[in-house]
C-alpha cells in the first residue's frame, strides 16, 4: 500500500482525517466545512493568509477547540470530543507559534517532560525511587539524550530555557515534541520570527525528523517559499474555507490560490 516518493521515503495510508469541520466563536465562523486528510509519513502543510483559520484548524486537531460540526478521524477511528492532554496521549504532539515551553525548567527537564506519556511507573514506585522507577528514568534519559544529540543542543542541556534565545527555544520545543515520539507532529509556524540561517536549520531538522524517524508532520506556515520546498501536499485555507488541496505544484498553479494568497504578496 505504501508508495515510495522519489527520495525513497514511504508514504502510507491515511493517519488523520478531518471531515466537514465547522467551528465558530459566538457568531463568527472561524472554519467552514473543512475536510482533508494527512497520510502516514508525509509532510503536510496548511497555509493561508493571516486570519485564514490555520491555527484554529490546528487547535481543533490537538483538542484545544471543539468544532460545532464535523468529525476528526485518527488512525481509522472516529475521535470523541477530547481534552488536549488526552489527544497528546493518543500520540499527537505539537508546538506553538509563540512557544509554550516550561521556561523555568532546563532543556533536559523540558524534554524529559515530553516523555511523560511514555512513563508508566506509578506514584508508589516513584516515591520509592530506587528500582523500577529509576531504571525507567535512565531508559528515558537515554532516549532524550539521543534527541539532544540529534538537534545539536548539548551545550544548553542544563540551561533554563527561559534564558535561551528565540531560535534555540524553538528548537527545544521541537525536541520536546520529538521526545513524545508522536505518530503525528503538529508544528505551528515553526519558522516564525527566525532569521534566514535559523530557518534553514529548522527546515533541515524537519526534513531529518521525517526521514530519520518516519514521523508524520503537519505544519502551518505563513512563508510560502519554505512550505513549497518542504511539504509533500498542501492545503490552502482562506477566510475559514478550503481553497485548494494538492501537491505544491498543483497548488501553486491553482488560479484561486494565486488570486487569494499569492496575489497579495506579489
Amino acid at each position, binding site marked *: 500500500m505504501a508508495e515510495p516518493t522519489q527520495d525513497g521515503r514511504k508514504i502510507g495510508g491515511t493517519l488523520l482525517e478531518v471531515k466537514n469541520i465547522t467551528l465558530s466563536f459566538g457568531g463568527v465562523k472561524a472554519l467552514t466545512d473543512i475536510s482533508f486528510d494527512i497520510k502516514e509519513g508525509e509532510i503536510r502543510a496548511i497555509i493561508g493568509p493571516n486570519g485564514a483559520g490555520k491555527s484554529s484548524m490546528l487547535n481543533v486537531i490537538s483538542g484545544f477547540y471543539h468544532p460545532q460540526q464535523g468529525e476528526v478521524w485518527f488512525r481509522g477511528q472516529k475521535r470523541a470530543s477530547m*481534552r488536549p492532554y488526552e489527544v497528546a496521549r493518543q500520540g499527537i504532539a505539537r508546538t506553538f507559534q509563540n512557544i509554550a515551553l516550561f521556561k523555568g525548567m532546563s532543556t533536559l*527537564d523540558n524534554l524529559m517532560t515530553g516523555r511523560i506519556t511514555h512513563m508508566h511507573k506509578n506514584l508508589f514506585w516513584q516515591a520509592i*525511587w530506587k528500582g523500577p522507577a529509576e531504571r525507567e528514568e535512565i531508559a528515558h534519559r537515554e532516549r532524550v539524550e539521543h534527541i539532544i544529540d540529534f538537534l545539536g543542543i548539548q551545550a544548553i542541556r542544563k540551561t533554563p530555557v527561559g534564558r535561551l534565545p528565540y531560535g534555540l527555544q524553538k528548537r527545544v520545543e521541537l525536541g520536546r515534541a520529538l521526545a513524545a515520539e508522536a505518530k503525528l507532529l503538529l508544528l505551528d509556524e515553526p519558522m516564525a520570527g527566525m532569521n534566514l540561517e535559523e530557518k534553514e536549520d529548522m527546515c533541515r531538522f524537519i526534513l531529518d525528523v521525517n526521514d530519520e524517524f518516519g514521523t508524520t508532520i503537519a505544519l502551518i506556515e505563513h512563508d510560502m517559499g519554505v512550505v513549497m520546498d518542504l511539504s509533500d501536499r498542501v492545503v490552502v485555507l482562506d477566510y475559514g474555507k478550503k481553497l485548494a488541496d494538492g501537491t505544491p505544484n498543483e497548488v501553486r498553479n491553482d488560479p484561486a490560490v494565486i488570486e487569494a494568497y499569492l496575489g497579495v504578496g506579489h
Partner: protein
Amino acid sequence: MSPELLNVLEVMLNGLLAGVMYSLVALGFVLIYKASGIFNYAQGVMALFAALTLVGFQTGQIPFAHVINTMFGTHVETWGPGVPTFLAIILTIGVMVLFAYLVERVVLKHMVNQAPIILFMTTIGLAYFMEGFGDLMWGADIKTMDVGLPSGASTWFETTTASWAAEGSNYPGMYVDMLDVSAAGIAILLVVVLTLFSQYTKTGRALRAVADDHQAALTVGISLRTIWVIVWSIAGCVALVAGIMWGAKSGVQFSLSLIALKALPVLILGGFTSIPGAIVGGLIIGVGEKLFEYSIGGMLGGATENWFAYGLALFFLMFRPQGLFGERIIERV
C-alpha cells in the same frame, strides 16, 4: 561566653524553631499557588481539619456523633479505644487525599479559567465550609494532641549550654522545647523529600511543568486535574504535619486555623512562588519577632510578637514587593 550572649543565642534558637513552624504552613500555600495560581485561604483550616481528624481517629470518636445523637436521640461518642497513632496518621492522609479529590471534582473543575479573585473567594468559602464541617464531624471542644513526640525541656541541652557560660555566672542553661526540635526535624525532612521528589520523578517534573505553563503541560499529555488532586493532596499532608505540630503545642482548637494568617507575612517576605522563599521567610520572621520582643519589646509594652511579622511584611512590600525569592514582577505594556 557571657550569659547575655547566651541569652541572645537562646532567643535566636527558639526563633528559628518557631520559624520552621511558620515555614511549614507557608509551604502549603506556595505549593498550591505555584501549581494552580490559587491563593488557598483554606490552608489554615485544612491544618485544623487534619488535626481534628487525626485526634478523632486516635481517640476513636464517631464522626458526626453530635448530629446522630440529636437526630436519633442516642448517646454515642466513641466506637472503641481508637487506633494507634501510626495507623491514625495513615488514615488521616487518606482522608486528606479524598478531600483533595473532592475539592477538584466538586469545586475546582467548575472554576477553570476564572479570575484569580474569584478563585480566592472560592477558597474563602471552602475555608468556612470546612470549619463548620469539621465542627459538625468531630465536635467543637478543644482537644489535646499527643502523637508521642518528645516534649518539654531538654536537660542535656540545658546542662551543656550551662557549661559554656563563664565560671560562677550561675547561668541556668538554654531552654529548648524538644517538641520544637522534633518539629523542625520533621519539617526539614519533609522539605528534602519534597525537593527530591519534584526534581527526580516523573510526577515531580509534571508538577513543575504545570506550575510553569498550563498550556504547555496540556500538550505534553499532563492532565491538569490529576495534577491538582496531587497538589492538593500534598498540601493536605503538609497541613497535617503543621496541624500535628501546632496542635501538640497549643491544643487542637479553632485558633489553629488562624496560623494561616501567620503565614501571610512569611509569604510576602519569601515570595508566593518560591519554596526556598517560604522556608527562609519563615525563619526570618521567627527569629525576627523573638529577637525584637527580647530586645525592644519591653520598651513597647510587650506582646510585639502579635504584630511584628506584619510590620516587617509591610516594610518589605514597600521595597521588594515580589519577595526575597519571588519572580521579578515585570509590567508588560
